């Protein structure tokens, strides 16, 4: 399973803004915004339990106060 974690849109992302600033200095003026996140790859034994994976993503991999998760299950 792959889990992508990104800051919620309303939470400012100073790291993404710093990357955006660097892009501007490199002449990449066409990039309007950058949001930095985390990418987790989980290997599981046997058939993945979708509910359990969702719980893992939402209770440990992401902090629901500030982050959103996107789950990509192997079957997709």
């Amino acid at each position: 399973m792959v889990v992508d974690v990104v800051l919620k849109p309303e939470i400012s992302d100073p790291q993404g803004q710093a990357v955006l600033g660097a892009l501007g200095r490199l002449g990449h003026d066409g990039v309007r915004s950058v949001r930095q996140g985390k990418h987790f790859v989980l290997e599981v034994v046997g058939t993945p339990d979708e509910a359990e994976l969702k719980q893992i993503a939402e209770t440990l991999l992401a902090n629901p106060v500030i982050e959103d998760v996107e789950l990509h299950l192997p079957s997709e």
Partner: protein
Amino acid sequence: MRIGVITFPGSLDDVDAARAVRLAGGEPVALWHADHDLKDVDAVVLPGGFSYGDYLRAGAIAARAPLMQDVVDRARQGLPVLGICNGFQVLCEAGLLPGALTRNSHLHFRNRDQALRVERDDTAWTDSYDAGQRIVIPVKNGEGRYVGSPQELDRLEGEGRVVVRYVEGNPNGSLRDIAGVTSENGRVVGLMPHPEHAVEDLTGPSTDGLGFFTSVLKAAVSA
């Protein structure tokens, strides 16, 4: 009065926190994150540092340590708990305090003496202060920016849950200058600045931090 200080892998300020407890007149008790043993303490301090190297998110893995399950259970029954810096991050991650701490808005680690205004003088950890009092204690963090949704922050301010606020400059971009918050019952307090580093004239900018530790001695007696 027995005040536990938890050591996680990567804790840095556990010794200073224990020293502050002793100077305040309490008996510091060393607690280990991997035990299920609170050793009959009357209150608990979660010290600063970089537990688990701040991997995943600051405080995230420490919040799932075995001893934290006991801390959460007892805190919900009224055990006074203080989280300082990384300890504050752990308490937010453990769900004992609202909000979250994120990377400083300017991306720099900030280390300086910081003026604060005490907003609440009736929590288990701030009873020795007066509301409105200005104190100066060190702040030192890279991920100390307190955030929450506007609705959540409105609710917290409406309920008087902000315990200390940054004044004369906000060191990390915390929303509404929030430096520390408390639980609904006022027993759990978390703050980014370090009261345990301001307990002696020789080593601190003031002795303003001692009040956190003297407060809980009274609170634990009345519990």
